[in-house]
């Protein structure tokens, strides 16, 4: 009984940490973008103010049940991903559910949220939403291929589909997987550009072009839920990358440093790049990232 209570408490603490860290990263991103563009930029806690304002807005939009469920799907997916990913290596503070799910389940669950969101956006009947969903799913087809190839390479090479198993492999050998399977790491990082949807791959939101795409009919509290879900999901994905390729982290400070450095790759690539068209984005993902994915699988098969 006590163990169950600890698990629930750990899950709540993990969620709060993920929310705060994800929101702060979002604010820092805005600040860094502003500094790159030679502006002063908003304070780093701007996202918290925005979230509070959105939560306190009255919301009188109703397009049907599925529209109401879309943000909920996103939130559920984010929390589920977060609970399956082990936050700290060998730590009893954040045990969560990481023994009950493996990489294959994670691959499935990570696409679940955007699909739910797509259904919700479809019911609003806004043409911008429909175009945004089409673009989002095309882009997903693009980046999922190098991402899956990189994970499959890891699974073949180390004979395990468990995230904690891969972390143990790194702890035993003493080298990070980003050094021992470099091609898988490169493919995964390139797929990350599509996952985080910063420019040049912000074709889904595209504020000036699609009026923010799938979320264009959602304001106020809907947007608050999506914003929180996005922040939590960002933290979960970054933690997953750190667990898989950078040996996990033994305490929160190391985790924050590693995730922040990793997060800066798409952000800094984004602030200096204009937006791709959909077919350019898909072609980009099916080019070099997929090539590196192939190399990773070949390496895995040879070294197996």
């Amino acid at each position: 009984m006590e163990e169950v209570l600890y698990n629930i408490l750990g899950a709540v603490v993990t969620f709060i940490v993920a929310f705060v860290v994800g929101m702060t990263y979002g604010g820092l991103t805005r600040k860094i973008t502003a500094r790159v563009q030679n502006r002063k930029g908003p304070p780093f806690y701007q996202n918290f103010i925005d979230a509070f304002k959105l939560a306190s807005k009255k919301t009188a939009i109703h397009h049907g049940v599925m529209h109401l469920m879309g943000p909920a799907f996103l939130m559920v997916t984010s929390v589920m991903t977060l609970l399956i990913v082990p936050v700290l290596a060998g730590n009893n503070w954040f045990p969560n559910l990481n023994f009950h799910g493996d990489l294959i389940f994670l691959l499935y669950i990570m696409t679940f949220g955007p699909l739910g969101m797509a259904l919700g956006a479809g019911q609003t009947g806004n043409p911008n939403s429909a175009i945004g969903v089409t673009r989002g799913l095309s882009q997903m087809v693009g980046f999922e291929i190098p991402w899956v190839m990189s994970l499959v390479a890891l699974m073949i090479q180390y004979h395990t589909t468990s995230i904690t198993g891969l972390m143990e492999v790194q702890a035993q050998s003493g080298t990070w997987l980003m050094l021992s399977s470099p091609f898988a790491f490169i493919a995964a990082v390139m797929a990350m550009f599509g996952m985080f949807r910063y420019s040049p791959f912000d074709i889904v939101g595209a504020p000036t072009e699609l009026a923010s795409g799938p979320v264009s009919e959602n304001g106020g509290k809907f947007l608050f839920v999506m914003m929180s879900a996005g922040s939590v999901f960002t933290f979960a994905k970054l933690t997953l990358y750190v667990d898989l390729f950078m040996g996990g982290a033994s305490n929160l400070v190391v985790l924050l440093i590693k995730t922040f450095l990793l997060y800066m790759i798409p952000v800094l690539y984004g602030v200096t790049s204009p937006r791709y068209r959909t077919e350019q984005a898909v072609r980009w993902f099916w080019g070099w990232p997929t090539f590196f994915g192939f190399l990773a699988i070949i390496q895995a098969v040879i070294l197996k």
Partner: protein
Amino acid sequence: MVNDKHSQKIVDFIQNWSRKHSIWVLAYGTGCGAIEIPPTMTSRYDAERLGVRGAATPRQADVLMITGYLTVKTLKRVIRVYEQMQDPKYVIGFGSCTINGGMYYDSYNTINVLDKYLPVDVYINGCMPRPEAVLSGFAQLQKRIAEGRADGATQYKENLEWYRANQKRIIPNWVMPEYNW
């Protein structure tokens, strides 16, 4: 939210503070004034440091910015956009044209006084107002929000018949949906 008067005061204070520091603007580029928005947002004047940010759709926006003259045809769309926005919402009248018609005061198809058709919270005068004036207008709006005096939307709801009569007088074929708040 809470019935108790004192706690309601505190909640109002916090909510108004967050509203004040997070203003998402729907810059409705009706007239020539829209050209002053990009310099306000970009490197030179950087409105984002005040929490002012562009919003993509009316659903997400807090402030509707009417930049310049409004033709009768556009007015219909602007009303539609305004009614799609979520409370609390504010309107900024931008440029002389929204105050008294400006240089289009005797034009056959523009409106002269915006306040008759939509509740304006803050006017920014000038033809064109420079980005400094726009920022000063935002500061004025922030002040009004913090004091809880930016209640244009409430007035619009309370005096809906008056606004509707004005709108219907000027728009010839009225096919808008009827709302009942």
